[in-house]
């Protein structure tokens, strides 16, 4: 066994510690540069022109007045692009880079103005006159399913973009003692990252560079290259750390359009979207779930029969994947001997829905968990007990031919129940609820990492992960500090520039700690192998510091050791998702609420989260992710929804009337607990985390409200008005 340098400890020194966030100082001093903070010389400012409805036939575009505005350099319409106008998208190439002939959602760019100043761009945009004829839009699940409705994409046969059928056993002949059957709805909600989207595109000698706070720089590179018809090597993406992503910054939107614009004007172009424009750009798919669940007399699930219709927007974006992935594991962390899940991705004349924390699971979980609560009530069972009877044991397969339960999930359930004091009698108007949420993780993905051990013993980590607040830089620093046995302040994590960092599939699906973490460990091992060989060659012992060792080897010329590591989630041909779920993200949530029965106002007195993370590489970061995720979940549970008018316009467009939780809306008590059995596939047995908190908050709170005031509401959000109305309906 060759000596390994610097005596790496068997016991991790940094992993498992709540090391302070890397980059925190830049963020508390204002030094952190987000996309809109970047200044690129000679950049033109961009403004989009849209029409005032969702669906319109464009008749004519008049740009003379706009072109006369001082400082205007380009007014671009679909006619100025290569014909036919390129279409692109992460799942299907279905979105024209600018509206051609017809708009399909309110906010879709029809004309783009580039000018020397933002003022000139804004003025010119206001002077562009678009003649159009408004056409009837498709705005709801019902309309999208109606064969008589207009087609959103006219080359398709219907507005059902994809339909999935998952299942096993024989639902139709399964015998149940009790069948619960209900419809549940989940509203359109938007990410509302505090950083609105911002982009710069600039021609460069090699091709083009695009700055975008994108979570998946390599996906953006591919999509832009495809739109331009260029090799990916000519497209460079620089992704500044996003000011919040949550999936909304995952997939390319307007970058291809900006690329064409920049190439046309031969100058950098910069677009900083308003919050309103950002709302029109990204949202979560709304959903209507029809659930029919059969139970035996003891409360064991006999069958799950689910029909889930997800309302996507005008273009696929990553929506079909959201639908298939969420419905694949829609039955939740429970045994269901017979299951049938039909799910559809429906097109509509609305903002294209995209990835959003939880990736479709919250929509399904709201239905399935609420079904269990109703069954418990009908069978006279406790809501914890009915879950206890259905949760699979560790290692047990609960979806055929899929990885089984990878944790002791009962432990999470029991811990949540205990922490919320489940059995303690309640005060009047108070109620408790409990729920489990389960999300499949990354399937068929790949991460590469480079670790460069420099001549002085410091190290650079090159990773395509995006640090959007989850703290990836911090965790990677901890991993490398342990693997190379150096101090965290000797490590820099470089991210986001595709000309520098190696390939990574995405920063999504809570996959980075597991996959990029493993890739980084592999890269460190690769470094260590080379270091060991060097030590052998120069005859040095294990205790020789890197700096001395490398000097002995390279001399004054200096040199470094570069380690390459990779990790992938295996591609499985024929698997419905392209591969098995590498781990399960499992969360138990329990809430105690107090409801004012006269007004419907809900006060979350206590919210408890138990997250089975395998191993928390940085406990504080995992806890804050869980807490934040849960509070975000309270948003769609209690207040968030995008409301559309009959023209397909968002009625509550902007921060004034799209409400998200403030600091006064957090639970009076919020506790997050971590289950750490080191049974995950990631570093030190870690599983992914960070989405779990929001998966099933709605069902826990909904059940608690039901216990408090005796109403079962199946439509989110549970606004004060909706609760009040349900109480009125019950009384009459």
């Amino acid at each position, binding site marked *: 066994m060759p000596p390994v340098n610097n005596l790496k400890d068997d016991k991790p020194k940094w992993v498992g510690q709540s090391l302070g966030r890397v980059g925190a100082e830049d963020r508390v001093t204002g030094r952190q540069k987000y996309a809109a903070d970047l200044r690129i010389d000679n950049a033109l400012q961009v403004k989009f022109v849209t029409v005032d409805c969702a669906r319109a036939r464009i008749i004519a575009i008049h740009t003379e007045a706009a072109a006369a505005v001082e400082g205007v350099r380009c007014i671009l319409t679909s006619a100025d692009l290569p014909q036919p106008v390129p279409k692109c998208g992460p799942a299907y190439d279905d979105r024209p880079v600018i509206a051609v002939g017809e708009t399909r959602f309110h906010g879709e760019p029809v004309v783009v103005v580039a000018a020397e100043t933002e*003022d000139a761009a*804004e*003025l010119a945009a*206001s002077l562009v006159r678009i003649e159009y004829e408004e056409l009837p839009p498709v705005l709801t699940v019902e309309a999208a399913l109606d064969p008589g409705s207009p087609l959103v994409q006219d080359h398709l046969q219907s507005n059902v973009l994809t339909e999935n059928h998952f299942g096993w056993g024989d639902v139709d002949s399964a015998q149940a003692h009790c069948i619960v059957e209900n419809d549940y709805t989940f509203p359109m909600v938007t990410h509302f990252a505090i950083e609105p989207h911002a982009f710069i595109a600039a021609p460069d000698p090699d091709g083009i560079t695009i700055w975008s706070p994108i979570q998946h720089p390599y996906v953006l590179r591919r999509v832009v290259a495809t739109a331009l018809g260029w090799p990916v090597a000519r497209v460079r993406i620089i992704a500044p750390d996003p000011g919040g992503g949550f999936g909304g910054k995952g997939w390319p939107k307007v970058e291809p359009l900006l690329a064409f614009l920049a190439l046309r004007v031969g100058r950098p172009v910069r677009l900083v979207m308003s919050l309103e424009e950002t709302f029109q750009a990204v949202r979560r798919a709304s959903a209507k779930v029809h659930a029919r669940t059969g139970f035996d007399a003891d409360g064991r699930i006999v069958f799950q029969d689910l029909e889930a219709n997800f309302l996507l927007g005008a273009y696929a974006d990553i929506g079909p994947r959201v639908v298939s992935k969420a419905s694949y594991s829609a039955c939740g962390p429970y045994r269901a001997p017979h299951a049938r899940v039909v799910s559809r991705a429906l097109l509509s004349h609305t903002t294209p829905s995209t990835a959003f924390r939880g990736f479709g699971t919250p929509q399904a979980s709201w239905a399935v968990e609420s079904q269990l609560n109703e069954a418990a009530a009908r069978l006279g069972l406790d809501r914890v007990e009915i879950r206890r009877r259905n949760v699979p044991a560790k290692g047990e397969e609960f979806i055929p031919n899929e990885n089984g339960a990878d944790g002791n999930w009962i432990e999470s359930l029991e811990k949540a129940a205990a922490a919320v004091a489940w059995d303690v009698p309640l005060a009047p108007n108070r109620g408790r609820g409990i729920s489990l949420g389960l999300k499949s993780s990354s399937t068929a993905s790949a991460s590469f990492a480079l670790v460069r051990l420099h001549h002085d013993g410091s190290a650079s980590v090159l990773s395509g992960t995006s640090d959007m607040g989850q703290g990836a830089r911090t965790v990677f620093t901890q991993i490398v500090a342990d693997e190379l046995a150096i101090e965290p302040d000797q490590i820099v994590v470089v991210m986001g520039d595709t000309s520098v960092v190696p390939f990574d599939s995405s920063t999504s699906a809570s996959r980075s700690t597991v996959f990029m973490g493993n890739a980084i460990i592999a890269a460190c091992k690769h470094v260590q192998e080379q270091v060991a060989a060097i030590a052998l060659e120069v005859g040095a012992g294990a205790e020789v510091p890197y700096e001395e060792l490398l000097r002995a080897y390279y001399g004054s010329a200096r040199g470094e050791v570069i380690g390459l590591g990779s990790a992938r989630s295996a591609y499985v041909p024929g698997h419905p998702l392209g591969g098995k779920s590498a781990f399960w993200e499992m969360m138990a949530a329990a809430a105690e609420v107090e409801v004012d029965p*006269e*007004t419907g*106002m809900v*006060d979350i007195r206590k919210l408890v989260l138990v997250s089975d993370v395998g191993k928390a590489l940085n406990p504080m970061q995992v806890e804050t992710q869980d807490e934040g995720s849960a509070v975000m979940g309270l948003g769609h549970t*209690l*207040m968030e929804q995008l*409301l559309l008018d009959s023209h397909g316009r968002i*009625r*509550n467009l902007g921060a*004034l*009337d799209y*409400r998200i*939780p*403030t*600091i*006064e*809306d957090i639970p009076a008590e919020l506790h997050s607990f971590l289950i750490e059995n080191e049974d995950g596939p990631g570093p030190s047995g870690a599983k992914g985390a960070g989405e779990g908190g929001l998966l099933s908050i709605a069902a826990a709170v909904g059940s608690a409200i039901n216990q408090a005031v005796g109403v079962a509401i199946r439509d989110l959000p549970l*606004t*004060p*008005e909706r609760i*009040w*109305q349900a109480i*009125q309906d019950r009384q009459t």
Partner: protein
Amino acid sequence: MQPFAYFRPESRGEVFAALREFAPDVRILAGGTDLMVRLRSGRFRPNAVVDVKRVSGWSSQIVETEGVLRVGAGVTMTDLVSAPSVQQHFPALVEAASVVGSVQIRNRATLAGNICNASPAADTAPPLLVYGAVVNVASRAGERQIPLSEFFLGPGRTALAAGELVESIDLPIPVEAAGSAFQRITRRRGVDLATANLSCSVNRAGEVRMAFGAAAPIPLLVTGTAASLEEMTAQARPISDVRGGAAYRQAMLLVMARRALEVSLGRLRQ
């Protein structure tokens, strides 16, 4: 935001001259917390904005004279809620002004601006109506007083004529014992616009004055007794919008009326 001319007059005369010169496309800027939102959205596209904060004699004071508390047009919500005289005599106004926007908003927003904006949901309007506030208005033609109950004409519309400027708001200091309170319903617990709001006062004779907002085109003042809360709130004409449905608003008025009356009676007894 579209360009406009900005004036920062130092005298009332200059204010009136600017208002005349640019009428009708001119806007007065005080705290700016409503105006700026409308300038940005394009709902207001004035040629000129007249910033009155540096006019000589422009009052940011709260002065007690002859049975009246005079609140200068420059008084912000933050100033208002921390003034002992307001706290002593007008607790419902303190409660209302404390929930207008956030701290940052209250540090800029003025009481006068809140009423000039004439939002049906303005939180300070109901208590001001209940307390019998009077608006002191000046123009080139001179000065006049408008009772607040005659000030609101519709959403965003007031009895102010072109060229008129609100200089202060008078609050008659109650001579007889009364208790008063403010209530509101919102969609979330932190900073929010009222789905509906209500203020009431009650005296020893059991006479109740009540005003409510976001329940009619203008904040409405009604009178009655503790036994007639339903009749009083039935005078509302709420609409349905993104913040709430008409039926919910109507029902909440009665809930708030009962609660506000209970608090008011408690304060009356103190």
